[in-house]
């Protein structure tokens, strides 16, 4: 049986409609056509490609043993917000089908996920809905493959916070591959909080594909896993749309972060702010690839892009490429990047106040991540009394 035959059987067994089978087929053929890192500016930096990609044999397992390819998610009660399994939602929800069919496969990994996912959640927030309490989703990663496709569609004039946590079900090696599609309607806002704290044997690859006509806020803390690939593609498609991206990464042992934020200002009066920060210990490495594009029509758009690394040990490494492409002059754009270690003066100051050396270093490291962590505190502390303590424990 060929790969395509496996896919047909896999899709038929799930009782999927024809359009979905065709969608998977197209994604499969694109997965072999597209590169792991299609943007030539960044293609040099793909150290862990062989782990972070989905190999032929893994795809075959995904098709032939779907029972071994699963994630399980639980979520808090949220009256008014629809939360259902992606498989049933794809069969029933017209808007989701439209959104999915309009997706463009950007790289080989994203396409492979689209061709082989077998679990995931669909979250739909109706028009004119304001949630007081955040919707909380916790996803567990199991041994082996976990290929997940999820989607969030927020209607018009709605305001919602969603907290996603990714944890390991046990201490076994696993691979979590997710495509998350997000659509935000006009005059709406979505605050998405992400905490990734899987075990040190986990490979995590998440594609977030966001079309926003409203406000999108993304705050994340990645402190688990071994090889982590994070992709965020944010299209600001409507005048007044905004995107705030605050990401923190905590690297230990030989962890590797491959982080790519691609932000497109297609319309005028759009704003994006990106702040990526990593503290890197042992022989961990972070690669920050940034690409902000302000197109011809993006008059009066504003962007800031910053990528900062704090290197804590002699084996730690960082790469930053904060790229800007600007096609008109009625804009403001700035970027900054830095890489440094804890200064002796800072440490001396804290130690002269009676804090022992390790504590001083920890304080400085937490302080370095504060621009990101404080977004968690300010957005979530009303609902989770101990969030500050909890995040600090994760970082240290």
């Amino acid at each position, binding site marked *: 049986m060929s790969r395509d035959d496996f896919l047909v059987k896999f899709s038929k067994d799930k009782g999927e409609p024809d359009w979905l089978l065709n969608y998977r087929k197209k994604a499969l053929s694109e997965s072999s056509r597209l590169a792991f890192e299609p943007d030539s500016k960044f293609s040099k930096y793909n150290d862990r490609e062989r782990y972070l990609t989905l190999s032929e044999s893994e795809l075959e397992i995904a098709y032939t043993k779907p029972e071994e390819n699963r994630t399980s998610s639980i979520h808090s009660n949220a009256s008014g917000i629809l939360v259902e399994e992606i498989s049933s939602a794809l069969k029933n929800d017209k808007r989701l089908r439209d959104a999915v069919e309009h997706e463009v496969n950007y790289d080989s990994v994203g396409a492979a996920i689209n061709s082989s996912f077998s679990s995931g959640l669909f979250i739909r927030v109706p028009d004119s809905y304001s949630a007081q309490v955040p919707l909380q989703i916790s996803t567990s990663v199991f041994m082996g493959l976990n290929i997940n496709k999820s989607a969030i569609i927020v209607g018009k004039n709605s305001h919602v916070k969603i907290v996603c946590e990714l944890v390991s079900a046990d201490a076994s090696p696993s691979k979590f591959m997710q495509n998350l599609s997000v659509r935000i309607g006009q005059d709406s806002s979505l605050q998405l909080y992400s905490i990734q704290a899987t075990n040190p044997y986990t490979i995590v690859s998440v594609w977030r594909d966001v079309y926003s006509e409203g406000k999108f806020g993304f705050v994340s803390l990645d402190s688990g896993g071994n090889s982590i690939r994070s992709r965020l593609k944010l299209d600001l498609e409507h005048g007044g749309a905004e995107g705030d991206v605050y990401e923190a990464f905590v690297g230990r042992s030989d962890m590797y972060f491959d982080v790519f934020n691609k932000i497109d200002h297609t319309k005028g009066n759009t704003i994006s702010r990106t702040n990526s920060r990593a503290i890197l210990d042992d022989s961990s490495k972070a690669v920050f690839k940034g690409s902000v594009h302000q197109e011809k029509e993006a008059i009066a758009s504003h962007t800031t892009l910053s990528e900062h690394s704090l290197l804590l040990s002699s084996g730690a490494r*960082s*790469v930053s*490429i904060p790229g*800007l*492409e600007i096609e008109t*002059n009625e804009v*403001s754009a700035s970027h*900054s990047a*830095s890489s440094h270690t804890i200064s002796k003066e800072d440490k001396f100051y804290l130690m002269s106040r009676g804090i022992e050396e390790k504590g001083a270093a920890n304080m400085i490291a937490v302080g370095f991540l504060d621009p990101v962590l404080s977004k968690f505190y300010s957005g979530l502390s009303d609902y989770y009394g101990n969030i500050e303590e909890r995040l600090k424990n994760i970082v240290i």
Partner: protein
Amino acid sequence: MIMEKLAFDYSGYNFRNGTDYELKFPKGLTKEVVERISKLKNEPDWMLEFRLNAYKFFLNRPIPTWGGDLSEIDFDSIHYFMRATKSMATKWDELPADIRATYDKLGIPEAEKKALSGVEVMYESESIYSSIKKELENIGVIFCDTDTAVRKYPELVKKYIGHVVSSNDNKFAALNSAVWSGGSFIYVPKGVRVPMPLQAYFRINAESMGQFERTLIIVDEGADVTYIEGCSAPVYSNNSLHAAVVEIIAHRNSHVKYITIQNWSDNIYNLVTKRAFAHENAFVEWVDANIGSRLTEKYPSVYMLEEGAKANIISIAFANKGQHQDAGAKAVHLASNTSSTIRSKSICVNGGRTSYRGLVKVIRGAEDVKSSTRCDALILDEISRSDTYPYMEVDEPSATITHEATVGKIGDEQLFYMQSRGLSEQDAVNTIVLGFMADFINELPLEFAIEFNRLIKISMEGAVG
């Protein structure tokens, strides 16, 4: 729009000479062309071998796709060698009148009298004029064209050529290594400080010409030299190619300052590899202004090989209609206590495109490295484009690396402020643009700052209203 009138006046450079060439190769590049160039120059075998090796690399290397659009370069429609005069002159009077007129128009002989220690002039493929002040020659300073150096100082050339930029570095460095001709060769002996700058002027006069000069600068321990190069060409409908390689070796405690004022016409592809090796406590400065050409891809680099080496790179780019300036800088820190600063200023107008592409790299074990990069871009109208692609690769935690950049237009408040002080709108724009480039102009020797102003006269007369 006021900005539409902002343009550098190229008319002073856009003149052609009906030169009678001594020798003109037919278009196209083959192994025979490489061999013929070498034979014409009576080169030793090792140089022919160097060329033929490079030619193989050139054939195997792909055309780079990461930068500007190179698809229109047709390697078969270029003349790879042209000889304009029988022999090299050491006095201006010895040059044929038409060529002499070219340089008179550009003001080179006049500048030589006033402010230079030596001058080297290259016309098409070869140097046609070379002179150096006697007193410098007497203390062992060598300043001649690289062809002469191969004959007169083969040991030095053999030791250093291809040492900094290998023939297989990239497609255009390979092409240059295969067919190079002309360029400057400088050797400054230990402890010698050259008091006034040495200058080279490169001129492409013919259509569909390829100029491939090779410059090699060796500055011995404790020595100091400033070198200035300028370039221009008339405007033709067919594109010409300029693919130079510049190698600098800065020995212990030496200082080199290399200033480029690139003012090619806008049908020249300017694809240049410039790199310096800085040894212990050496200080290398690149001051690089790109005003002309259709597409420039040029990233002056400093490899800091030993402790205490320093680099200072200033890159200026101006892109007008139809131009793409893909310029930048590279600072590679390979030793402890090395430091670098990079400043980039770019201006684009009338649909021009500027790109900053830079690299700061620190290898593991190179402790206490400091590097700061600052890029500023000014976009003068809504149809122009500016890109910034900085790369920072840091494998050493003790390094302090910073990068910042801003992109924007001339602020309405700035214009309003200056107009409220009595300047016309046009003068206000002019003042702000020149002020934006002050970082660069300040780096020029005084006489050249004045010449630079003449060289790139900003023509904005009658722009208001």
